[in-house]
């Protein structure tokens, strides 16, 4: 209706900075981690100044990433609690995939997909941290029995893969699928239209607040 769409604040500046750092760390951690994971990706170590540097930086970046994530987690966990509507939503994934949001029950700040992803992130990040410490040479790994280190390696990889799968979904949704989301994380705001469409309950909450 209006020439200039009305905007709603979704993320504060500090949210955005933190998420930006999180995303950056993620990219670096993934690049370094995946370099060790498969020989075909070892070339990625070149971005870090070679294998030794990649090996040394990965856990440090991983910890940094975990810290950023932890901040986000503390902040958002309330919004990611599943509600009754969410299960109905999840029962209609077909509609979700086909962008037929009209068939879906209304949702709040985050949709159940985002919420599930959130909890997946929580679990994998914790696992990655713990197993990462058990793998961390030369400081911590020698403190663990070899059996533990072996298990840690496997769990670390599985967690990483799960995390990455999640990230594929997350990033795809954010950048390509749900247009306007990027804006939320870059500028902090979404259009009313966007909010109304994707997160009607949240929109409600935000606008009713505004009205008062």
């Amino acid at each position, binding site marked *: *209706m209006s020439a200039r*769409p009305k905007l709603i604040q979704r993320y504060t500046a500090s949210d955005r900075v933190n998420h930006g750092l999180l995303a950056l760390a993620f990219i670096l951690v993934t690049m370094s981690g995946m*370099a*060790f*994971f*498969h*020989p*075909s990706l*070892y070339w990625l*170590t070149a971005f870090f100044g070679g*294998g*030794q540097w*990649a*090996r*040394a930086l990965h856990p440090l970046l991983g910890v940094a990433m975990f810290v950023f994530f932890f901040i986000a987690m503390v902040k958002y966990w309330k919004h990611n609690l599943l509600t009754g509507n969410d299960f109905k939503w999840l029962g209609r994934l077909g509609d979700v*995939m*086909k*962008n037929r*949001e*009209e068939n879906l029950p*209304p949702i709040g700040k985050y949709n159940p997909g985002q919420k599930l992803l959130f909890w997946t992130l929580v679990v994998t990040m914790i696992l990655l941290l713990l197993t990462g410490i058990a*793998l961390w*040479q*030369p400081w911590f*790994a*020698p403190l663990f029995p*070899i*059996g533990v*280190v*072996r*298990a840690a*390696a*496997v769990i670390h*990889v*599985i967690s990483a*893969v799960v995390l*990455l*799968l999640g990230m*594929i*979904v997350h990033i*795809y949704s954010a950048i*390509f*699928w*749900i*247009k*306007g989301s990027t804006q939320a994380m870059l500028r902090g705001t979404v*259009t009313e*239209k*966007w909010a*109304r*469409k*994707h997160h*009607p*309950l949240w*929109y*409600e909450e935000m606008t*009713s607040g505004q009205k008062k």
Partner: protein
Amino acid sequence: MQSLDITARSATNRTPPSIREGVEVAKLIDVSKCIGCKACQVACAEWNDLREEIGTNVGVYDNPLDLTPSTWTLMRFAEVEPEEFEFEWLIRKDGCMHCADPGCLKACPAPGAIVQYANGIVDFVSEHCIGCGYCIAGCPFDIPRISQKDHRAYKCTLCSDRVAVGMEPACVKTCPTGCITFGSKEDMKKHADGRIADLKSRGYDQAGLYDPQGVGGTHVMYVLQHADQPELYQGLPKDPKISAAVDFWKGLAKPFSLALLGIASLGAFVHYFAVGPNDAEDDEDDDKPRAAAATDKED
């Protein structure tokens, strides 16, 4: 050593075949002849220019107490009574076994940090080593150690530098009792047969060769008085194998994960073209949010 003699290389999708036929070598340690003099230990330190720290005595003869980045071989003493009243002091020279199927090499993520030569020697190339310690997790014998100084992995090289120029390893050269011998694996097995026959004639019915097949055989082998109970020798594994966890991690997990990630990405790709983005701005101007409509709230 030249690349044409390298038959396996860590973190390398496919190692080209070796164009030369190498004779497999082996070091045979006849535990029944070992007097625990540690000359091999000192020779190893001297040849490889390693200077271990001076430790303390904690109530045993083993010194240093464990392998370290500067101690690549070590005498381990075990006081056992396999049969009642038949006390034995079993002394085993511990160190890299140079497995035919080396778990360290399998686990190593750094291309060329671990190589296996045509003669069977498994060598660490520290220049390429990134110090991740995966080799430790990969090794069924708990051999490699990471240096706190340069953050790289070290272990016995089977004196690949000496063997390459036709000399025997330093420990073999030094061993005063002839308890360590070195030669082609075939010859060493033959030599071991003679030793085992001698031990059997002395009442060691279970004497035998330790050349564990679980790792494809080793290029360091033991003649044991009690081959049926290798654990007596300070925990020499009875049936060493690359751990299932490592097998999975370095085996299935790799293609499977990449495939999964690939499929997921592809899925996103397909979705994008098939369904396309979900853009709120594309929708016909419907100011009414469904939620609002549903709850009948006015704008």
